[in-house]
């Protein structure tokens, strides 16, 4: 993976400032999302609108995951914890008092009496997540490779077990309901586009470039006096905030959340999406999410059993999990850089354009 | 077929970079051939290609068989042993265990043990430290261990990759003395050295390589010091 990610053409980088590359590249990368999104909003029935919303939320998580994993080269298995923190932040802060009296009447820190406007709740939640991310980021950045991965996993488990075993604040195993449903598909898509641009901006920024350099060759990066820890910390925090936004969107879209949603199932799925597309690029995150969202939906038809194309099938629980596992294993064996390869969409397009002009 | 080893058009590429292009080389049985050249000339790549750790193109004919597609392990079984560059002794193992792994391909355990005793007799210092961790040995001792370890497989061809690198002159002299002894015993040796003067004194024939190609080959005696300098600098 590491050899593939680190290839931006130096001539182009010299022509345009990085932030322009990031913004324009991000917008180009987001085109497929926008097109599919508009098509779904205009013509699809409600059921598919909801599916598209869930897929778009997953997209935000996958892009968030890419920001850390794709640039630092460290496998991150705890990103769903941040999504969970975002969602629970909204649940605790924005749920109407009437509902809270039912769900968490004994919340500590006087939170049982708090009901914020969703917009303010978003800001407070992101601030809290940022604090958590800065602290956990300090730990992660100090560790290298595998130890960092294991600690990211430990983080997931710690957060999950807090959700489960601190019922006064998180309502435990049962779903948290009554969160104001103020977000629809268009808003989620807009966030998706914004997040894609942010991820591209980070990737193209001097810091992002340096971080990718440390992933590829730590010794050489050391020799250039690149502070790998600080860079890893930055990307961890940014990644956390993006994942938390996905959680926030989920809470505001679905209205009910439970700890199970933000655990291994989601980690597996989003990870498989990123790997399928290619973790080195934001484009990979986008296409991996698109393809796997559609593919998984097709598989779920079989999974639940019933009558498909005139055949009566038994329910096949676990089929989608098998598919996810197979996607990861096959990608790693056959195409570790993912189906999109080492280049971003805009780089591929401009390359294709150049070839076209060349053949003329 | 008196050549024990013949390289025909050997090439080694690392991605887009070519380290060796079209190298031809022969070693007759019982010969000591030195492979000389400046840093980055492709000497170590050539050794890597012969051992099989580095993928290569062209033919590598050893003992009448093209081994160029064989895995590294199979080549050891056929009789090629190497004392690698930087010695690469197993630092976390004892001296005895290092020697034992050198004999891993052999079925005759008793003979291997007597070989071990013989090598220890040649390098008494190894005998003194036989149950010590090899990582605690000095550089010269580690080099001796690396050669002894290679000899444990009773090779037909011994590859010595930079045996003098980073060692004190006195120790270098001792190691070259030992190489001369090996040659006198009839072993075929391919010696890769930066220390050209020392190597030429020992070698029957010399190949000089620069930028991945042979720029000179012939009897060591005919290669005067001044020519060598020119060859090193690229004509």
């Amino acid at each position, binding site marked *: *993976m*590491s050899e593939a990610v680190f290839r931006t053409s130096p001539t182009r980088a010299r022509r345009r400032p990085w932030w322009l590359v990031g913004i324009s590249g991000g917008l180009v990368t987001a085109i497929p999302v926008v097109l599919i999104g508009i098509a779904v909003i205009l013509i699809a029935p409600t059921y598919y609108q909801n599916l598209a919303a869930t897929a778009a939320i997953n997209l935000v998580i996958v892009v968030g995951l890419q920001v850390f994993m794709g640039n630092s080269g460290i*496998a991150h298995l705890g990103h769903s914890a941040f999504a969970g923190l975002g969602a629970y932040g909204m649940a605790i802060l924005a749920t109407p008092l009437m509902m809270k009296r039912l769900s968490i009447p004994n919340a500590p820190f006087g939170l049982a009496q708090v009901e914020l406007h969703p917009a303010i709740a978003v800001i407070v939640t992101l601030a809290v997540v940022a604090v958590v991310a800065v602290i956990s980021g300090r*730990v992660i950045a*100090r*560790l*290298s*490779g*595998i*130890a960092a*991965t*294991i*600690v990211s*996993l*430990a*983080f997931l*488990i*710690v957060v999950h*077990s*807090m959700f489960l*075993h*601190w019922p006064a604040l998180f309502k435990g195993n049962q779903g948290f309901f009554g969160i104001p449903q103020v977000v629809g598909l268009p808003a989620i898509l807009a966030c998706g586009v914004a997040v894609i641009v942010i991820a591209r901006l980070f990737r193209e920024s001097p810091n992002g470039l340096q971080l990718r350099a440390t992933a590829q060759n*730590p010794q050489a990066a050391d020799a250039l006096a690149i502070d790998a820890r600080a860079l890893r910390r930055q990307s961890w925090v940014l990644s956390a905030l993006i994942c938390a936004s996905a959680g926030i969107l989920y809470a505001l879209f679905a209205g009910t959340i439970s700890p199970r949603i933000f655990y291994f199932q989601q980690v*597996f799925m989003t*990870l*498989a999406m990123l790997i399928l597309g290619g973790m080195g690029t934001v484009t990979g995150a986008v296409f991996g999410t698109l393809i796997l969202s559609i593919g998984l939906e097709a598989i779920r038809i079989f999974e639940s059993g019933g009558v498909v194309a005139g055949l009566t099938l038994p329910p*096949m*629980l*676990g089929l*989608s*999990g*098998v598919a*996810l*596992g*197979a996607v*990861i*294993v096959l990608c*790693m*064996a*056959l195409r*570790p850089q993912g189906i999109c390869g080492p280049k971003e969409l805009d780089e591929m397009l401009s390359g294709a354009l150049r070839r076209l002009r060349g053949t003329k | 077929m008196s050549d024990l080893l013949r390289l025909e058009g050997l090439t080694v590429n690392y991605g887009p970079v070519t380290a060796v292009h079209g190298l031809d080389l022969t070693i007759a049985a019982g010969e000591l051939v030195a492979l000389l050249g400046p840093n980055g000339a492709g000497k170590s790549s050539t050794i890597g290609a012969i*051992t099989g*750790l580095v993928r290569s193109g062209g033919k590598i004919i050893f003992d009448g068989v093209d081994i160029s597609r064989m*895995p590294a*392990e199979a080549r*050891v*079984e056929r009789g090629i042993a*190497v004392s*690698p560059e930087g010695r*690469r002794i*197993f630092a*976390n*193992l004892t001296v005895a*265990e290092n020697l*034992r*792994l050198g004999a*891993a*391909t052999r079925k005759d355990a008793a003979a291997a043990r007597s070989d071990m005793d013989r090598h220890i007799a040649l390098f008494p210092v190894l005998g003194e430290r036989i149950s010590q961790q090899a990582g605690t040995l000095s550089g010269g001792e580690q080099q001796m261990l690396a050669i002894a*370890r290679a000899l444990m*497989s009773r090779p037909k061809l011994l590859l010595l990759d930079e045996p003098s690198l980073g060692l004190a002159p006195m120790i270098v002299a001792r190691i070259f003395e030992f190489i001369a002894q090996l040659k006198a015993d009839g072993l075929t040796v391919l010696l890769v050295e930066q220390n050209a003067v020392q190597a030429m004194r020992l070698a029957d024939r010399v190949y000089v390589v620069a930028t991945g190609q042979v720029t000179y080959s012939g009897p060591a005696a005919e290669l005067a010091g001044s020519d060598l300098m020119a060859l090193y600098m690229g004509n």
Partner: protein
Amino acid sequence: MEYFVQQLVNALAFGSEYALVALGLAVVFSIMGLVNFAHGEVIGAIAYSLLLTASVGLSSPFLAVVLAVLAGIAVSVALERVAFRPVRNAPTTTGLLTAFGVSILLQNMFQLLISPRPQAFSLFNGMSTTWHLGPYSVSSLQVMEFVVAAISMAALVLFLNRSTLGVAMRAASRDFSTVRLMGIRANRVIAAAFAISGALAGIACVFILARRGGVAPDMGFGLVLKAFVACVIGGFGSLIGAAAGGMLLGFIEVGLLAALPQEMGGLKEAFTYVIVTLILLYKPEGLFGTRRELGDKEF
């Protein structure tokens, strides 16, 4: 005192279980730098094969133990051949993610082919009785667990120090390519590592089944996460570290269980992981690790 002895035996038993699983991970990691997330599913596969053979009439616990070890070796070696060989020389992250994928795949296969629900398994129930050692009564299972784990580790140490293959494995943990230059086949060394890992999984599986009396698709996954933690505390790739880390983890858990008030018992996991993270902050390379062993393998 009674209470203390019981807790001590408890901790030793838990620690032994973690140590067995952690050793299985560390053996493979030290040789080929693979973080084998699928180790838990090896345990799962063993359990399901015991379940299947029991359903067709296997009734001897002794035979079942032998079968467990053999099944472990077979599954583990087969996984290496099918899934891990293609990524053998890839970066550590690639191997880690592959193993993660294999783990998800197998877990869901168990669900799909057998059942998402736990299945009862009673063959080993006889192993659990109460022994009276002097004034103390202890669980036979726990004592056996500790003793068997200690014997297996001793056997492993013996193998690594006495046999040529074992010595080669120790050498390969530092410098794989030079081991190949000794004429020792890479595939043999790696297969041996996976076989040992599988055998340890088989032993661990017997105790897990005896303790839980049932089989579930995710039975190995949680355990392997803990074993990872044990490896990381001990220093990834160090065998002594894995064993010590496993034991330490057992003591931390039992200690927390004894120390935490009843209503916070559910947070045991969380506290365990927090303690572990603190240990790592203090010693990022683990207790027995060197910097090099932390995933940056030289080849």
